[in-house]
């Protein structure tokens, strides 16, 4: 039974259910959202069908510019932090015995799947005055009095790095496992120290992987919506928080939809870039 093109209508049978479900419940909602982004908002949280650009025109405000700028900055900072720690970590992990790898992978998957609500709650506890890390500093004599470390930018940044780190490792893992070990062995034989071999052989060989990972983690961080809310001040809100806020609490669906469409376009452009970088890698 070789792979062959479908010939009769019945051959398409298995495709009906998945194609129908994905079309009705993903493509149509997506299209609905795009349509709503052009609708006119009415008082009291309703909206009427129209074709106006008002919702997009609001992007030109200083407030929106600030939120967008901060979101992008935060996502870049998180992506860089994760990749900088993630590359040496994943590299060492991929060279560890299989049993150790599996233990780490299970732990990373468990943290990755942990609800954002729970990650936010865990960090707000760790950064709290009564149960937090500052109590440890006081005990060690580094601090006079325990204090709360939230809300602050540092708290948002730390928790988002925590959330994105397991994702970063899992994105890097396949590429690093497949990296030819003879590359570093050759460098070591020629007298390079392990650290030098890592920076002069491993990192350059992975240039495109690193770029693609940076972009993937950037998009992942862009999607964080609860941590800035739970651990930051209103000026630390990101585009994702603003979309949720407009949709649920301000009942301004058209504006929320317009921002979501904008976020899609940014993400798609970046995914395209990541795929392109990935293809460059394969071409080599």
């Amino acid at each position, binding site marked *: 039974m070789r792979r062959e093109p479908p010939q009769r209508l019945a051959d398409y049978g298995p495709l009906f259910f998945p194609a129908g479900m994905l079309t009705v419940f993903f493509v149509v909602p997506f299209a609905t959202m795009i349509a709503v982004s052009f609708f006119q908002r009415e008082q009291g949280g309703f909206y009427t069908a129209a074709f106006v650009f008002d919702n997009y025109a609001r992007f030109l405000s200083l407030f929106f510019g600030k939120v967008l700028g901060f979101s992008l900055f935060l996502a870049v900072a998180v992506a860089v932090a994760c990749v900088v720690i993630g590359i040496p970590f994943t590299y060492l992990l991929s060279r560890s015995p299989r049993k150790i790898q599996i233990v780490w992978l299970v732990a990373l998957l468990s943290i990755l799947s942990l*609800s954002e609500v729970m990650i936010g*709650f*865990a960090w707000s*506890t760790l950064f709290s005055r009564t149960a937090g890390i500052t109590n440890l500093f006081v005990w060690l004599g580094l601090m006079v009095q325990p204090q709360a470390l939230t809300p602050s930018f540092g708290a948002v940044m730390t928790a988002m790095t925590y959330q994105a780190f397991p994702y970063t490792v899992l994105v890097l893992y396949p590429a690093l496992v497949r990296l030819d070990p003879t590359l570093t062995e050759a460098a070591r034989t020629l007298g390079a120290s392990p650290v030098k071999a890592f920076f002069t052989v491993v990192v350059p060989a992975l240039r495109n992987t690193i770029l693609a990972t940076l972009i993937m983690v950037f998009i992942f961080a862009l999607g964080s919506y609860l941590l800035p809310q739970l651990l930051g001040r209103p000026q630390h809100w990101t585009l994702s928080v603003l979309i949720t806020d407009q949709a649920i609490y301000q009942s301004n669906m058209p504006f929320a939809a317009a921002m979501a469409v904008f976020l899609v376009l940014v993400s798609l452009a970046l995914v395209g870039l990541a795929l392109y970088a990935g293809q460059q890698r394969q071409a080599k």
Partner: protein
Amino acid sequence: MTALRRLFFFVVGLFLALPLIVVAGVSINARQTLAFPPQGFSLSWYGQIFTNAEWRNALIASLTLAASSALLALLIALPLAWFLWRRIAPWANIFQLLGVAPFTLPPVITALGLLTFWATTGFYGQPWTAVISHGIFFVTLPLVTLSLGFSAIDRSLVEAAATMGADDRTVFRTVVLPLILPYLVSGYAFAFVLSLNEYIVAYMTVGFTMETLPIKIFNALRYGYTPTMAAVTVLFLVIAAVVFGLVARFGDLPKLLGAMSDER
């Protein structure tokens, strides 16, 4: 180098474990205070999850949603992955792309799309809309594991069965299904655990009519602190670790995550 490597692993491990250690600590406090190290010892907050009606209902809602939406995700992914493996139809890859899209884009986008959709069709707030929403949102996971599973099947096995006169249905039942079963199970496991923890899509679709545990914790956070949240967090972490541990025990986790099978 080994010492340096150990130190680096230890620091990363500490960073990952620290918030969880504190949460585990506050979950066994005797009184309802946020204190670490814990004052006294009590497992009553874990009991609360099952005895308090609100938390129990949220737990049941979460488990029901996760079990049924993961099944739906599997039912969408299996025929699609099989079709893409069995037939040469490049245009059908568009559905593969559609299946992966919700997971690649920021989740708030899928959530908002589904919110506008359910509001427009008039089903907003119905519990079953959450099942469909999660089923679509997490279809990526079984789709990816199954595609991997199908690509690992030796086609000569299938050809041998076909030469002996087996039709598509028989081949699927007797050859293909046993071979992809581990991938089927792990795809379901991934979707189940992630659905259990998912907040934004559930909140935007049924947040006002139904409380899953993540929604319940978020709502409870606004009114102050109760150690039950910490207990639920620990419980969910244990569930995830057990499920992924089982996947690793009975499957090939490094291979599932993209490593080659005969490595090391």
